[in-house]
């Protein structure tokens, strides 16, 4: 039941906006707050003894003639992502309180976006998954195209072009699995581990599904929509894009591609690993060349999601757990970074590093300090959230699943390590360019206001908590990952 409530609350909230006279200033905060409360309720009532079991299940006939079912559920893999989605959406609304109300449409779009995101993580029917996956696109497109920066139309267009292209592959792949297996039930399909699917079908299905998901992740070289979309999107758009949208791709890999087409996964894993490793280094190199704050953070996402994909490519429990951990860590930290980028851009009137021109620690010490924290967390300092996903991904590629070429994966590990060094380099370049040195600004910089604190403190606290106590998150994902991988190893 709670799964349906999670979807109904934001959906009803969006629909109610058509009723005139709804208070707009606190409306979004209220609706997303209730959604977050429901998500936290789900987390509180979750049976932690059996994180591998689907809980809060809903399984109703939807279109019986073609075997479609409205099947939802939460296990240890989806729970953290559901909570992250609800939290980030809520924080986006809180953050938006600092502006004059931006209109019903914006609020409605964000809420519909939340429905799509939550639905993607809740869906247990392949077509249902695809529907939610697609629902996300429209509001995101509109948010970029209507509220974005000067190049918004082009960026929004690129975003939709890439992701639609990916969706096409994804749909064909899903249908290929569904048709050949005779069911669309994701739980059943995952339990079969490809039984009943021929080798050829699995190889093709993994490729198609993988391509569709890889665009979203984004995997190099399908990432180029991301920097544009991020640079042009309004702050809350960037936060949700980086914080949650990208995770839909990697989540799909773990929930669909790897368990349902394991033979295909073994064939394609080295290629996935290769592209992931290239993405790690490439993202870092591209970051070193950027002069725009948001663009740099966007490229850093390419690198970080590269670690997540590398973890998946190892096809080991360690690697998949690393990927899921990396998902959450990246959502928290990069979400925070984009919030910060928005606030910096607003105060300085530009996102160009040379335009900001240093001295933030003396001009706006709190903003500078939080930015330093976020950068240090993002570069993977041990003890903070960003570290564990990367370390475990490297550990996974040190010992990939049996049957995968070990020497190749060792090379990926080395590339990943190189990427980690470069990651430190570009984040420190960023910090030394804008937080240190003399300020070129005469005018004072506005202090942080209360909504900014309210939006950021939870992210900072969680980054610390997850980093210091990784067990909490890993205990959730370990059991379901074992199930998805067939209980072996």
């Amino acid at each position, binding site marked *: 039941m709670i799964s349906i409530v999670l979807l109904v609350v934001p959906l009803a909230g969006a629909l109610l906006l058509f009723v005139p006279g709804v208070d707009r200033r606190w409306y979004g905060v209220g609706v997303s707050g209730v959604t977050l409360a429901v998500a936290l309720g789900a987390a509180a009532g979750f049976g932690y003894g059996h994180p591998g079991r689907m809980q809060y299940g809903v399984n109703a006939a939807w279109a019986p003639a073609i075997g479609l079912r409205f099947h939802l559920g939460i296990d240890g893999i989806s729970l953290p992502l559901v909570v992250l989605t609800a939290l980030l959406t809520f924080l986006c609304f809180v953050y938006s309180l600092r502006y004059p109300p931006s209109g019903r449409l914006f609020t409605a779009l964000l809420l519909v976006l939340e429905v799509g995101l939550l639905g993607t993580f809740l869906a247990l029917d392949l*077509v249902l998954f695809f529907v939610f996956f697609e629902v996300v696109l429209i509001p995101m*497109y509109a948010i970029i195209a209507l509220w974005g920066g000067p190049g918004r139309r082009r960026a929004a267009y690129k975003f939709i072009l890439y992701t639609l292209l990916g969706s096409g592959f994804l749909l064909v792949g899903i249908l290929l699995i569904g048709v050949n297996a005779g069911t669309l039930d994701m739980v059943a399909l995952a339990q079969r581990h490809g039984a009943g699917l021929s080798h050829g079908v699995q190889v093709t299905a993994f490729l198609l599904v993988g391509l569709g998901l890889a665009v979203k992740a984004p995997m190099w*070289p399908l990432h180029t929509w991301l920097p544009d979309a991020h640079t042009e999107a309004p702050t809350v758009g960037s936060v949700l894009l980086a914080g949650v949208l990208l995770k839909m791709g990697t989540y799909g890999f773990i929930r669909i591609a790897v368990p349902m087409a394991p033979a295909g996964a073994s064939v394609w894993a080295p290629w996935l690993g290769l592209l992931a490793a290239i993405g790690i280094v490439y993202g870092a190199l591209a970051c070193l060349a950027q002069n725009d704050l948001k663009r740099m953070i966007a490229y850093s996402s390419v690198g970080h999601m590269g670690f997540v994909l590398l973890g998946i490519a190892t096809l080991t429990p360690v690697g998949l757990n690393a990927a899921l951990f990396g998902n959450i860590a990246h959502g928290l930290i990069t979400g925070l970074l984009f919030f910060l980028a928005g606030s910096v851009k607003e105060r300085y009137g530009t996102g160009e590093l040379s335009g900001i021109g240093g001295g933030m620690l003396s001009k706006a010490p709190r903003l500078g300090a939080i930015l330093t924290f976020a950068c240090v967390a993002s570069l993977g300092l041990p003890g903070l959230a960003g570290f564990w996903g990367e370390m475990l991904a490297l550990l996974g590629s040190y010992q990939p699943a049996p049957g995968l070429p070990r020497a190749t994966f060792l090379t990926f590990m080395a590339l990943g390590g190189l990427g980690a060094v470069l990651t430190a380099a570009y984040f420190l370049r960023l*910090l030394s360019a804008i937080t240190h040195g003399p300020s070129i600004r005469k005018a004072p910089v506005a202090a942080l206001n209360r909504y900014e604190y309210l939006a950021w403190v939870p992210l900072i606290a969680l980054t610390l908590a997850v980093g210091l106590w990784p067990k909490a998150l890993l205990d959730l994902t370990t059991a379901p990952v074992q199930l998805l991988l067939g209980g072996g190893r």
Partner: protein
Amino acid sequence: MKAEGIQAASWLLIALPLAGAAILLLGGRRTDKWGHLLGAAMPLGSFAVGLAAFFQMLGYSGNARIRHLHIYDYFVVGNFKVDMGLLIDPLSISFVLLITGVGSLIHIYSIGYMAHDPDRRRFFAYLNLFVAAMLLLVLADNYLGLYIGWEGVGLASYLLIGFWQYKPTAAVAAKKAFVVNRVGDFGLSVAILLMFATFGTVQFAGVYGGIGHASQGTVTAIGLLLLLGACGKSAQLPLQSWLLDAMEGPTPVSALIHAATMVTAGVYLIVRSNPIFNLSPDARLAVTVVGAATLLAGAIIGCAKDDIKKALAGSTMSQIGYMMLAAGLGKVGYVFAIAHLIAHGFFKAGMFLGAGSVMHAMKEDVNMRKYGALRTVMYITFGTFFLGYLAIIGFPGLSGFFTKDGIIETAFNKGGTSGAVLGTCAVLGAGITAFYMSRLMFMTFFGEKRWDDDVHPHESPLVMTIPLMLLAIGSVFAGGFLVLGGFADFLAPVVGAQEHKFHWVSVPGTVTLLLMFAGVALAWMQYGARPVPREAPRGSFLTVFARRDLYGDALNESLLMRPGQWATRLAVYFDTKGVDGLVNGLAAGVGGSSGRLRRVQTGFVRSYALSMFLGAALVVGALFLVRI
């Protein structure tokens, strides 16, 4: 064995300074008035706990001195499990006392040194953060915990080098330190992965228990990777270049982090990992080679610097080179490495703080060519500095004499060609050390006044000079106390028991002593007997070579930075031309012409909704057809 009594509370060691850092950072300006007092009290509190734990340890004997304190389960994933715990043994307690003892003195000194800095509170917050991370590094009972501390001290070092953020040079230096360290950290992290994969654990006990069953190749690989990590943190060749730039930080930072404690973490890592190195002669040899090369390189750099802090930094590199050399020599070496490390912690911290006191008097000028004759106005600073100086050059009876001679003798005892070569390097290094330290001494405290006109030097306040005096006492006695007082037996539970007797007179010792006097005499002829020019002469090829840090930066730039810049440009080019070009071209091709593409783009939401609808219809239709 489980920790009991006060040792069961050793988590306080880390918690106190961590709490200090948290209070000062979160409290903000409200804590400005008393922040420095809290900041200085925290390491003192840790020192008290450490002392109590130490005396409790003395009550035990043998292996009962190794105590374990479980904190919490870190995580379990796959076959891997990590428990977070603390290890209280003779090695870690030695470091705890050094870190909290010397650390407390430096905190107290900083109250005076940073008195006029508006951000003094933040400075103490970072210092406390450093102490907490450093204590975690030496107390953790597993490599992952050690690594967290390792990166934590790196972060604190980064923050403190860049503390005066209005200085652009400080920002660059801080960045460089962190990035170069990251290269070393890569080695350490791969070593940890290797341990995970080989032993299924990273607890010290598990790794050392299983090391005997691992293949020789694995053991050597782990050893070499650990060495790479140690090179980064301890500024050893080839990752030495960051330390000289790190002198941009406030002087107490140079004393605490870049002389006494953090930079010696590499030596700790190797000595702690002694069961690994004991099994791999190749890894040990690599350690000695790195140590011997760095002890010479650092000493040569020290000879040419006119900046008092950079001269001392070169000396730090060199002295850590001695420790590394010792650590690579095996059992007896471990003891001398740690003994020298502790003695060095006292005399080098003392001299750095002395240099800070001098800089205070000279309006923050660091150029020794503008010093001279300071002994006449700064009695305490001069006196304490002079004792530190005698200690470092190995004057008979002072700290350095015992520990450094021990290392030299152990090197020769290694035997064979390698023993002779390493020993000779160490002896030569001792001579050069005497030269550059005497040069520094003469240029700063002796000779003519070469001060700028508006400089009126004065002695520093007591809050600064009392720590200097206490450190000077350590400089004089620490080495002898450790070497003659049975430090080898104390460390035996960790590094294994060994027979060793200190020889007051030996052949290498005598040669070293002669070279030392020669170095002092040479320095006297050049910088004591003759006036020192206020402008640096052009100098010979060798001087320029040394001034430029042996071209380490130039080498880094041409080998790493340039190709890196090319790679970044390539990435950007590829993004705009390659991928995007391809996809746009593809899209244009599919759309027939770019004109039609543009038409699709306008009113996109509508056409998208339409295509969604069509797509959905197609799906439903397809499903009907196949009837699943």
